[in-house]
């Protein structure tokens, strides 16, 4: 009996030691386990390089088109290449058709990149599903579908045409009503856009909602008629509102919404932590910033940049920037330009841009 008891005790002690060893082993495994993938990564160095920072990046509002032009011309290696098809290495291997003068009849569909040595014209409902580079001017018919278009001359766009990515002209752009202008539309000259066109980013000198008036630019550009003073250094905080016909020589910072009355002149900047509403015929020599929406009254003249974390509405015939002062209108959630509104420079939104 005593022997059995000793045996049983010895077995129990052995099992106990075994269990302790297993628990200890488990603890070690549980402690080491989270580090195993890290040790593997540290030894393999699959992601050891610094995070990528583009050392050459700089802001250029016509970047898409300039990059495409450069890539295509460098790949072609001959700006006067003969007509025909070639396969070129751009971002990937691409079929490029070289045409001297393009005139696409209605309903045509093109599935490859186009390089047009002179001008391009298209009829109704043409689909150009890859990028197009026109060394002359482009006349796009109504209801066309384009991926992207760069032209060294002017571009005119027919009603209801849709761009999926971008368009860019060295000269001017004229877009008829109800066009969708992709994610980026820019030009080196005037950019006139018809009603109900939508956009995300526009750049032009100027961008004009509606037709450019005859006898432009001097007649319309009111900047020459106003002596622009450098915005004042002094700051006025939290005015309840600015009544009509006010003249302020100070920057204004408001913790709430702010309304500026008609015919007021502000020689300074304005920042509102909620909405900012400018009446008609208001002149501001500085910038306008708001955490809420910004509304610029009809016939107002803003010499600075407009930036809103919500929406920007530019009422009829208001002007932002001048020929000599390129500025920006940025509304995170949307930008609306009413007829006759004019912006010298950039108009941009992450939401929906609309010509009303």
């Amino acid at each position: 009996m005593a022997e059995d008891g000793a045996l049983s005790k010895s077995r129990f002690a052995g099992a106990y030691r075994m269990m302790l060893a297993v628990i200890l082993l488990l603890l070690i495994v549980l402690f080491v386990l989270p580090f195993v993938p890290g040790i593997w990564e540290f030894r393999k160095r699959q992601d050891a390089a610094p995070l990528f920072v583009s050392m050459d990046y700089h802001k250029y509002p016509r970047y898409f088109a300039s990059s495409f032009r450069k890539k295509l011309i460098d790949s072609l290696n001959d700006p006067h290449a003969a007509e025909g098809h070639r396969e070129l290495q751009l971002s990937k291997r691409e079929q490029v058709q070289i045409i001297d003068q393009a005139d696409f009849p209605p309903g045509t569909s093109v599935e490859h990149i186009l390089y047009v040595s002179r001008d391009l014209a298209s009829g109704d409902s043409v689909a150009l599903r890859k990028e197009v580079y026109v060394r002359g001017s482009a006349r796009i018919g109504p209801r066309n579908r384009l991926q992207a278009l760069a032209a060294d001359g002017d571009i005119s766009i027919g009603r209801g045409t849709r761009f999926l990515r971008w368009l860019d002209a060295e000269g001017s752009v004229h877009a008829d009503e109800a066009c969708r202008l992709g994610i980026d539309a820019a030009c080196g000259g005037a950019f006139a856009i018809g009603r109900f066109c939508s956009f995300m980013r526009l750049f032009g000198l100027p961008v004009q909602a509606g037709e450019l008036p005859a006898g432009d630019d001097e007649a319309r550009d009111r900047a020459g008629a106003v002596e622009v003073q450098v915005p004042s250094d002094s700051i006025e905080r939290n005015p309840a509102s600015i009544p009509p016909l006010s003249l302020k020589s100070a920057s204004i910072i408001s913790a709430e919404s702010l309304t500026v009355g008609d015919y007021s002149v502000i020689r300074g900047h304005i920042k509102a932590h909620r909405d900012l509403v400018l009446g008609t015929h208001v002149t501001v020599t500085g910038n306008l910033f708001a955490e809420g929406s910004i509304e610029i009254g009809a016939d107002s003249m803003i010499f600075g940049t407009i930036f809103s974390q919500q929406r920007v509405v530019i009422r009829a015939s208001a002007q932002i920037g001048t020929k000599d002062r390129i500025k920006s209108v940025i509304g995170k959630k949307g930008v609306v330009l009413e007829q006759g509104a004019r912006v010298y420079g950039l108009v941009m939104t992450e939401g929906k841009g609309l010509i009303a």
Partner: protein
Amino acid sequence: MVVLILKIYLLFTVAVMVLYSVRHYLFTLNRLFGEQRMYYQDIVDSELKTLSVLIPMHNEEKVATHILDLLVQADYPADRIEIIPINDFSSDKTREVIEKYAARYPFIKPLHRTEGERGKPAALNAAIELAQGEIILVFDADYLPPKGILKSISVCFNDPEVGAVMGRVVPVNTRRNLLTRLLDLERTGGYQVDQQARYNLQLMPQYGGTVGGFRKREIVALGGFDTKILAEDTELTYRLSINGWKVVYANRAECYEEVPETWEVRARQIRRWSRGHNGVMFRYLLQLLGSPFLSLREKVDGTFLLFVYVVPVILFAGLLDSLTLFFLGQMELFSGLLFLIFLGAYNNFGNFAPFYQVGTACLLDGATQRILLLPFLIFNFFFNLWYITRGFFDALIDVVTWRKAKWQKTERFRKAGSPERIA
């Protein structure tokens, strides 16, 4: 009685950890699912502000050419910019390097300091007196600014309320060793999530003293930098904020920096940061709470930020406290479900919430492999705990004895003539 105090302190520690955990979670959730405020860098403006770019240099012959080469290529109009390399008592060839560049580029206007106070704040004060620009940008000498960064930072000042701007710092020498890889993770979390979330939520992003800038007129009006403070960047953040200016964070104004490659250098750096930051905490806490220009949420966040280098001290004491209670057999503070919540808060939320922030930042940066190193941050955590605690007591002694802090430069590791670039 002693046991009761120990138990109350432990509960206090847990409460502090939970509060900071909630803050980290809010930031992380904001970056993952919240609305992201638009940054100013898309602004196109033909009337750019005049800039003075200040580069404090003390024995920087190894790195001076790299930053100057990059800055002269910046896409900022030459007539709107001046670069002021500040040779601050260098005993190596920094002076010769700077003079060579000044002879070639008229907009490089060196400042050689051989007398007066030493250190970055004093050097900046001396350079600000000479600077002609409306905006002062500061880059440490080991930084590698990209071509477009000056414009990206400068356009923020179009907002009339912006007093200072902070860009994103990206370590360049990540490949060196485990420490540089872990510091890379810390920076990623700190900028990609923490700073950006504070910008999104309109709280108080922090000016970091480099890859950023401020309005010259306002800093001169506020009396320049206080040379007694080691964290001149944190001090600037609070001085501007309590006087009605905003600090904005520019996540896409990215710039490479060199992080410490040895634990000794890192220890000195983190201890100095803690000492400087806590010095600011002692000085500005009441002014922050009493400022008429800050919203309640900015005050709350500003207070959290001020105490960020006190939390490790509280936690360190809490760990010692819990060990004492354990060996006294007095750890039964709660029972049942409440105990589980207590345990969860203490271990999971408290210790590891910042790690979620780092993991999320890696995800946002598309860095899917380096995220595997995340568990190793536990070593940094205890390392920082120790040196931040020491820095806290340094600051405490500074305050009590009116001792003046001496500026310590972080050692450089880069070899002359070979800026480490991305692969």
